[in-house]
């Protein structure tokens, strides 16, 4: 199947049995874009630790890793 991220697709369905092909269904909804979940982010880093308080930081996901 030649699908790519960001493709917008719709589908039709039909069935066949020993008597022949049935008719195609109507086309589905047309508001669906093919996508991937974003890639994993880099490991967050700890900036400081004071008493019972910690401070964590992380880097924003690069654009090419958001998968749209």
């Amino acid at each position: 199947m030649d699908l790519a991220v960001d493709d917008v697709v719709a589908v039709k369905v039909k069935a066949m049995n020993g008597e022949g092909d049935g008719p195609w269904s109507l086309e589905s909804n047309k508001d669906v874009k093919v996508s991937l979940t974003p890639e994993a982010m880099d490991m967050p880093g700890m900036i400081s630790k004071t008493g019972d308080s910690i401070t964590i930081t992380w880097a924003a996901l690069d654009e090419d890793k958001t998968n749209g």
Partner: protein
Amino acid sequence: MSEGRYGDWRTVSKYSSRTNFIGNCMHPDGCNFRVRTETECGSVSPWSGVANSSAQTTQTPNNSMVRTFSSPTECGVIIQWDRAPSNGSRPQSLQVWIQKRSGEFSSTGVSQYCSTASETTQCTIPSAVLRASPFLLTTDDDVVAKVTVQYSSWKVTYETDSNGYDVAKLGSKPKKVTTISVEKAENSSIDVTWNPPSDEQNLQYELVWNNGVGTLDEFPQYVPLTQPYTFALRYNRGNLRPGKEYVFKVRAINSCGSGEFSEPSKLSINQAPSRPDTPVVSSILEEDKCGVKIDWNKISEGGTPITNIFIDVLKKDADGVFQPSDITELLNKPDFVKNFGSVEVGNVDMAMCPDAITEKSCFITC
């Protein structure tokens, strides 16, 4: 002129030495003559043979004077005869006789159905009367009748000729219909055809069916399909439900009653699968899965198992128009075979196509 049609004899010439007689014969069948000799001392010779005045000119009629045929409206035999002529002498009364199985004629009980009025020309005798004493006729026996017309001074008897077409057979209920066939016809209807049970004409038929309830092996309950009865030998039934077993049987009906039902004949109507409901496409929001999920409602299989499902994927082009992209056949997918081999299918674990397909959804992957 056959033996047994002589009326009362009367003397037209006596004690004459003449050897001829001149007179008028007004009888429609001519007049019969016989002679004998009596000597002066009183001894009398036997009667001569019988001569008929019109024997030389009488032509064999195409139809008998008396005819019998099956009644189309009731279980009986119609006796019909030509109206007694009144050439010179008016007919006074008549009497109908039926030949018994033993060969003799009897009029016992016939007057209940056949008037003795001389102007009548037809009557109907129920088959039950002919089957009873004293006639004791049975099915397919010839019904031979004779009519005796009483004139003022003679009787004339007309009898059914045994010519094969003026003699009815004693009827009965129709025989069993032995040939019935069912075939699939246009628009998923069923054509039911059958043959008459015998050479009988004007039979009506009653066709019954199970209306798709139960099967032949489950002692189906039959309900009438032809109401009223039909004279046709074919019936087309539409508006049938796929996958149901339809069982038909037929019997013939005549004025004597209903024949035995035929053996049942069955046929199931199968169709191509119905149009699926509009499918629903949704995004896959699972890690490392690229594609869409397609869901559709269970498709009515049309009476025979679904063997393949096609998914036509349309992709939106740069102009915003959805163009055909690819058609995926789900045939031979392991889970498809597994799940569509039976209509009793439950959901299975979703997985990426082509590895797994459920009854109602699958994934199209990137």
